[in-house]
């Protein structure tokens, strides 16, 4: 009878994922939208755990919820959004959005059908993925990425690196007159470099000694 617990968990996570997904697009306040999106990510991670893919679940939380969604939230909170203005044009985009949604639905159905009826799918799956009970999925993923397909993986990494450097170069601007701290220099500074004791005769004044530090 214990088998009912994963089923309950599945329906709970699935329902929350779908409901949160709907609320992402229907929430009026963009900040609420992002928070619903985070809930959707989180429940999707729960579904991954139920599938036995705990490594992917944790990555989903650490990368998407812990880093990407934080940036979303940052941007949305910082923007000064006029909610009225935002809502006005919403229905003008409905036909286009509906078209994209329809294409996606057709593609998803085709994918599902291919999964079921494709001639080679069963054998392809079996050749790549060992049974979950045999290998921890952390190890299985590690073997696929870092041993079997290391050059492809490194290539993808290099492309991302080049893209990142490109983005930095394109948006970089050198500003003049910026005063930067040099921590090493600051730490190396001694009292003798910073001040000097001078005997001043009354009514004579003094020329400041040259700064050394």
């Amino acid at each position, binding site marked *: 009878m214990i088998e009912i617990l994963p089923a309950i968990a599945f329906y709970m996570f699935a329902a929350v994922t779908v409901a949160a997904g709907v609320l992402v697009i229907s929430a009026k306040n963009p900040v609420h939208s992002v928070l619903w999106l985070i809930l959707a990510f989180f429940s999707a991670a729960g579904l991954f755990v139920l599938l036995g893919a705990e490594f992917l679940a944790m990555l989903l939380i650490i990368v998407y919820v*812990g880093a990407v969604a934080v940036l979303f939230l940052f941007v949305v909170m910082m923007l000064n959004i006029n909610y009225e203005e935002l809502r006005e044009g919403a229905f003008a985009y409905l036909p286009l959005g509906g078209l994209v949604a329809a294409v996606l639905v057709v593609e998803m159905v085709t994918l599902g059908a291919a999964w079921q009826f494709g001639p080679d799918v069963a054998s392809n799956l079996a050749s790549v993925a060992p049974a979950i009970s045999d290998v921890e999925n952390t190890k299985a993923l590690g073997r696929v990425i870092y041993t079997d397909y290391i050059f492809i993986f490194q290539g993808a990494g290099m492309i991302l690196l080049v893209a990142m450097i490109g983005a930095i170069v394109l948006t970089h601007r050198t500003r003049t007159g910026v005063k930067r701290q040099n921590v090493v220099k600051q730490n190396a500074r001694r009292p003798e470099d910073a001040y000097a004791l001078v005997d001043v005769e009354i009514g004579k004044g003094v020329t400041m000694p040259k700064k050394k530090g």
Partner: protein
Amino acid sequence: MVEAFYNWIIQFFEIEQSAFIYFVSIVAMILVIVLPLLIAVAFAVYFDRKIWAAVQMRRGPNVVGPFGLLQSFADGLKLFLKETIIPSGANKVIFLMAPMITFTLALIAWAVIPFGEGMAIANLNVGILYVLAMSSLGVYGIIMSGWASNSRYAFLGAMRSAAQMVSYEVSIGFVLVCVLMAVGSLNLSDVVLAQEGGILDWYIWPFFPIYVIFFISTLAETNRPPFDLPEAEAELVAGYQVEYSSMAFALFFLGEYANILLMSAVMAILFFGGWYAPIEALDFIPGWIWLLAKTAFGFWMISMVKAFVPRYRYDQLMRLGWKVFLPISLFLVVAYAGLLIAFDKLPS
């Protein structure tokens, strides 16, 4: 732990197996962890204040109960009886949800902490990642409270905190990679089992530089002094907690200390041999007492730092995270990988 308790119930009461009983045993195990944890948090606050007082040659709390031991409970009662004030410009739902999220996240991370061999609520294969994930989620409680309060101080505190936590997670991640390479598993129990033996087998010795980075990053991750910029009272009054009162504030406070205890426990597991005794002669003392003692030691160190290190400036904090810890920890990952291969110590 859940399985064992479930089987025990089934046998002891001679009842049939059912999902309900399993559910009940999960809840029971959670209570077994959470209730002592909350009491521990109350005493951790007392402990913290006493250490702080001792360093400054004061007495600290010494009025309520013997040696002031009941001070935290008195404070809790006081907070409980206060009025909950919600600012009129605040986003009510998110404002009230933020402390709950902080508190809940601080508690659920304890699910994977092994108190002895096989003594964890969930013996996850990816236990370390789970702890990392939960501590990275902690930032939401702070961002949400900062935004929902509709106050400049709170918002600035939340922004600082988010940037700080995201930055230091990177170096914590690399630190964990170093330890995991030597263990060969992401399971926290396996990490402890890899350190079996006396004090000389603990990872604190071979991984000392990593331990230093982890310790300092922990301070930043839990918003402890010297990195408590999100609540820097000199410039931000109390940061993201400005608008909170009563139980909402108490939840933030408890969550913060539960998080600090969690990081101390993780430190004990990663570097101080978890539930193992330092020398063989002391093996008769149960493992969970050793883990508690080591956690208390970690907490003591974190507390001492609060007592004698002045607060960092914000740009210094960011510089330390990105320009010092990130390159060093990246280098250490490469260096330890090389050493493990050179000395043929890689786990199979």
